[in-house]
């Protein structure tokens, strides 16, 4: 089973995202901010990270930069999921190593489409 680290400071968003991802057969690990997420990645690297941008302690962008420097940290697929939907933020994230980008609000179809895009799940036949 693939694992997905869901990083968001909103427990409601974490819950919604986790439910969608569990339906897609992911095992979920949750984190409330970038620092917690980084600790989780140091223990065990996930297959995927669904990542909010604005969070207390360490934001999503700082976390991703740190993750990419860990041994093997270039492997997890990072999909941003944020209200930061300006082209400047998107470009900055892609440039720093994000694989995909979801602009909130999101739904199951969008998460599935984006996870297919980066090869985390199979396209429906």
């Amino acid at each position: 089973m693939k694992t997905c680290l869901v990083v968001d400071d909103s427990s409601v968003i974490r819950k919604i995202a986790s439910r969608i991802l569990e339906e897609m057969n992911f095992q979920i690990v949750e984190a409330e901010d970038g620092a917690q997420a980084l600790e989780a990645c140091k223990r065990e690297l996930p297959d995927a990270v669904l990542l909010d941008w604005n969070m207390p302690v360490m934001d999503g962008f700082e976390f991703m930069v740190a993750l990419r420097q860990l041994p093997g940290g270039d492997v997890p697929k990072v999909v941003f999921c944020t209200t930061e939907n300006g082209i400047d933020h998107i470009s900055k994230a892609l440039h720093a190593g994000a694989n995909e980008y979801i602009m909130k609000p999101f739904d199951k179809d969008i998460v599935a489409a984006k996870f297919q895009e980066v090869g985390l799940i199979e396209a429906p036949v």
Partner: protein
Amino acid sequence: MTPPDYEYLRKLLKDQSGLDLSADKQYLIESRLVPLSRKAGLQGIPDLVQKMKNGSTSLVAQVVEAMTTNETFFFRDKIPFDHFRQAIMPEVLKARAARKSIRIWCAAGSTGQEPYSLAMCIKEMESQLAGFRVEIIATDLSQEVLEKSKAGLYSQFEVQRGLPIQLLVKYFKQTGEFWQINPDIRAMVQHRQLNLLHDFSQLGAFDIIFCRNVLIYFDQETKINIFNRLCKIMEPDGFLVLGAAETVVGLTDAFKPYPDKRGLYRPNDARAVRAPAGLVAPRIAAAAAGM
């Protein structure tokens, strides 16, 4: 939108059109019906629902039409576009090396996602297409839909279903809450209003025809008639791409399936079927009998 309004619309759509919305499609209803309610001079969805409950059949018809047609997104189903890049274009490039022109028809162009997806594929292949003239003709029954396609303006939801983020960044500009496809991609697509039931021979000959998810709305006889007319305006070495739930098998000999590429067809060498629909009709019975 209140849950009772959502349930009312869900049931109405199911009863009227067979469209079966899951419990989480509020955004889809809002994206289609908020503009419709404004056009009808109403305050929004609650107002719209109230008017329908009071018996406005014309509103019901408009709501059903708005919700059932033109369901499309960028790179819809993905596989046909893999076929386009990996099978169709390499062959067409070789076959047209002398003529250096390629003509593509999107026969159900709808709001532009399919023709623009093809245009982006072509733009990405630019280096192999030096000196080629590539025409993409998008047609649709509805003028309103074509206007939306021409504008190339999409909501945040529309650009997130099927469109890789790298292509969004590369080929779209953000304008307020919307995203508009760049002028150079828009200029690659020509738009024409067209009903597939009518003669379309004036469009000229095509190397590639995308005719996806439109024939499902027609009966067998009409499908056969359209297939045969598609075959007539297609180059003998051309390609036909159908939707995931569509096939020519059992309907016509005009096209044959391309090996191992689902949804992809080529004209039959024999070009056997040139008969009017009346003479073709017995084939339906033969197909139904399991031939």
